[in-house]
């Protein structure tokens, strides 16, 4: 999946769609398999990116990957205090209150005890009750930034960060499970927890650096985003994607080299995004197609891989980036970083406008510090973020030259080629990003065609397919 953050309006429709379909039941009240958090902020659960606290992800030691949890087993699973105390409202009150000048109100109730409670935190508290000056300094992504500058009124910035399970290639959740209840489906890469095998130990939840596994206190087993597999198998997008108001979500398959996953996960930090991209194969390469066929990948998947928005945005155009690649799980949800407000300048006519000639060179003057985005999406590698933002700006510049300045496509194309793009790329991007057409290309699965994942480290070949 790719999420284009510029387009997220923070409406939480995705979260509600997911909740209504999957987690509106006892034991999962606090669980938002899809959540939307506001940045800068601490997220859900609070400061989940701080692995010193939560013990998630992999650590590279002597060229070996080890689960942080395995190095120190004293990490605890997150508590309701880290998430929030789930609450409901006493809607009855709306009908029974005496008629007053003010609007009627409903008291919040603890969802478990049904007793009145004082709400102290919520799944997107950073946004709901603002207070960024208090909460935002605790965001773990300020590393290397003088955060005080950005907490000043006028200099402050914000964007939304919707999150689901990343259905990682090198997931930390699965190997942490002594019961081997967590597994990746070879046919489409969806990561699931076998509810018959799960014993509720919560090692997976500690190991997942994204905190995307939720213990169900009612069943005593852990649960997670299932990428709406019953929908996906029939060619339909997940509920979050279908319902997304901002049309920010793109779903497609990619072909990748399963045998190289461990090697990619061990890349030096600043090379992690590059190594991750190199795993993704060119679905037009005849050799790749042949190997895919030999490995039993069905034709409709190969065709879908050639039309996949994930392939284009992550691999070909390098617009999309993984969230916290330094956790080394090779997450398969990618984010096109927000092209935050372009700082306006007094132009020749004494009007505030974007001096477009200077936009691309002045990319470091954008409101959201590049460093902040790099800490979040590129393990600190600012060049990866710059490349993505520059390309996004180049597309806008290209269309501006045509629409505003009346240049021909051929003339305007100079700004594209400067950033390694073609007119055809720009047209495709326009259709996908601006018009939001064909946001999902999902081949239907046929059970009888299921392939098995090649065991890691053995032989060449295509490891299978992964939904992005």
């Amino acid at each position, binding site marked *: 999946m790719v999420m284009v953050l510029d387009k997220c309006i923070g409406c939480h429709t995705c979260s509600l769609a997911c909740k209504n379909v999957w987690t509106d039941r006892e034991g999962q009240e606090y669980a938002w398999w899809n959540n939307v958090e506001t940045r800068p902020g601490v997220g859900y659960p609070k400061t989940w990116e701080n692995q010193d606290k939560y013990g998630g992800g992999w650590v590279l030691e002597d060229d070996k990957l080890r689960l942080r949890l395995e190095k120190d087993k004293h990490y605890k699973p997150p*508590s*309701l205090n880290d998430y929030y105390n789930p609450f409901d409202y006493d809607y009855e009150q709306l009908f029974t209150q005496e008629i007053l000048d003010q609007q009627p109100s409903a008291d919040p109730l603890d969802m478990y005890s049904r007793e009145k409670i004082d709400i102290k935190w919520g799944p997107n508290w950073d946004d709901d009750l603002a207070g960024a000056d208090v909460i935002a300094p605790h965001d773990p992504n300020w590393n290397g930034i003088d955060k005080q500058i950005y907490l000043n009124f006028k200099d402050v910035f914000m964007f939304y960060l919707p999150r689901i399970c990343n259905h990682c290639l090198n997931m930390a959740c699965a190997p942490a499970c*002594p019961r081997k209840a967590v597994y990746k489906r070879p046919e489409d890469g969806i990561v699931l927890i076998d509810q018959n095998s799960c014993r509720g130990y919560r090692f997976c939840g500690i190991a997942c650096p994204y905190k995307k596994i*939720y213990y169900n*206190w009612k069943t005593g087993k852990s649960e997670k985003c299932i990428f709406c597999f019953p929908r996906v198998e029939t060619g339909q997008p997940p509920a979050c994607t279908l319902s997304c108001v901002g049309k920010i979500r793109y779903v497609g398959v990619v072909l990748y080299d399963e045998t190289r996953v461990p090697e990619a996960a061990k890349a030096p930090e600043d090379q992690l995004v590059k190594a991750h991209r190199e795993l993704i194969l060119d679905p037009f390469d005849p050799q790749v197609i042949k190997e895919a066929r030999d490995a039993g990948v069905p034709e409709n998947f190969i065709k879908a891989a050639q039309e996949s928005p994930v392939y284009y945005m992550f691999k070909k155009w390098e617009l999309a980036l993984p969230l916290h690649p330094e956790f080394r799980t090779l997450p398969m949800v990618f984010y096109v970083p927000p092209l935050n407000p372009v700082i306006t300048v007094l132009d020749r006519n004494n009007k505030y406008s974007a001096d477009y000639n200077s936009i691309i060179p002045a990319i470091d003057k954008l409101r959201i510090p590049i460093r902040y985005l790099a800490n979040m999406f590129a393990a600190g590698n600012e060049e990866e973020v710059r490349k993505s933002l520059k390309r996004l700006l180049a597309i806008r510049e290209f269309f501006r030259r045509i629409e505003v300045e009346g240049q021909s496509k051929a003339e305007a194309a100079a700004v594209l080629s400067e950033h390694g793009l073609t007119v055809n790329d720009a047209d495709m991007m326009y259709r996908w990003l601006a018009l939001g057409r064909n946001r999902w290309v999902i081949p239907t699965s046929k059970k009888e065609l299921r392939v098995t994942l090649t065991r890691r*480290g053995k032989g060449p070949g295509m490891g299978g397919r992964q939904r992005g």
Partner: protein
Amino acid sequence: MRTSFEALVLSILLGITLAISLTVGPLVTGQAPDVTAKYVAGNLVQDAQTAMKDVAVEYKTGLTAQQIVYPLSDPGSAEISYNVMHNGTHIAFYIKWKDETKDMPIGDVIDQFPDAVAIQFPVFKGELPYVCMGNTQNPVNIVMWKSNTGAEALVSASAYGRGQVQREALQMFESRTRPIHTAPPEDQIWYSDAYYDNGEWMVVLIRPLGSTSPLTPSLEPGSTTSIVFAVWDGAKDERGGLKKTSGWLTVELEQAAAPAEATTQTVTQTSTVTVTAPGKGGVPGWFVEFAVVIIVLLALAVVYLLARKG
């Protein structure tokens, strides 16, 4: 002619030896069992609170922290005291151990773990696997009691949770071999009750001796089985491999006083199970064993005489 006769004698002798070891194993091997499950006539104590005060816990066994497979426990030890008894139809384990905190997460609690105890049995007689969780050749049957959910029967068939290095060596990243499963409904034959008082748990676990499921070994009066105990302390976030275990212990079930007759005994408040209970009188177990030995010796003598003649 003589050679084939000798072969016949040898095979008869082998057959007899096998018969001896199968029927009167403990007698022949002379191995003293670690635990004797005494035969008691009538109903077994089911209520843990009563058991805490009335059942004498005769045996004590030290448990040590599991230190072999991921996730490794902190070094440490514990001790359980227990008693095992049967009434010819059911076997009861009375297990008592000290635990300063009563950890019983109930309701919307997501970060706490229950206190627990388990007993593991080999599914087949024969070679015993490593004390934790069996292996593919030697599966184990486990009853696990948790403070918040009670007893559950499990079947496990492979040492689980290999460390990262072992996993890499075995290329097990994607392995879907599930080492442990909740046993099918027909194997959920355990009754449990628990009582916590003054820093101590008493857990009563009772099951019928007989079993029709291949995953649950039948326990017969007069036979021996092997068991391993394990306990978990919820306050220390112990669960899964973070546990303390005993070594394998042999348990001999005393002969029942009489052959069983079908009767009905109420084992839980909610369910009634039909079981077989011993009748009155009958041949004592020691007599059967003695008779078998005499028959075998006589047979040996006959074979020897025949051999000499031939």
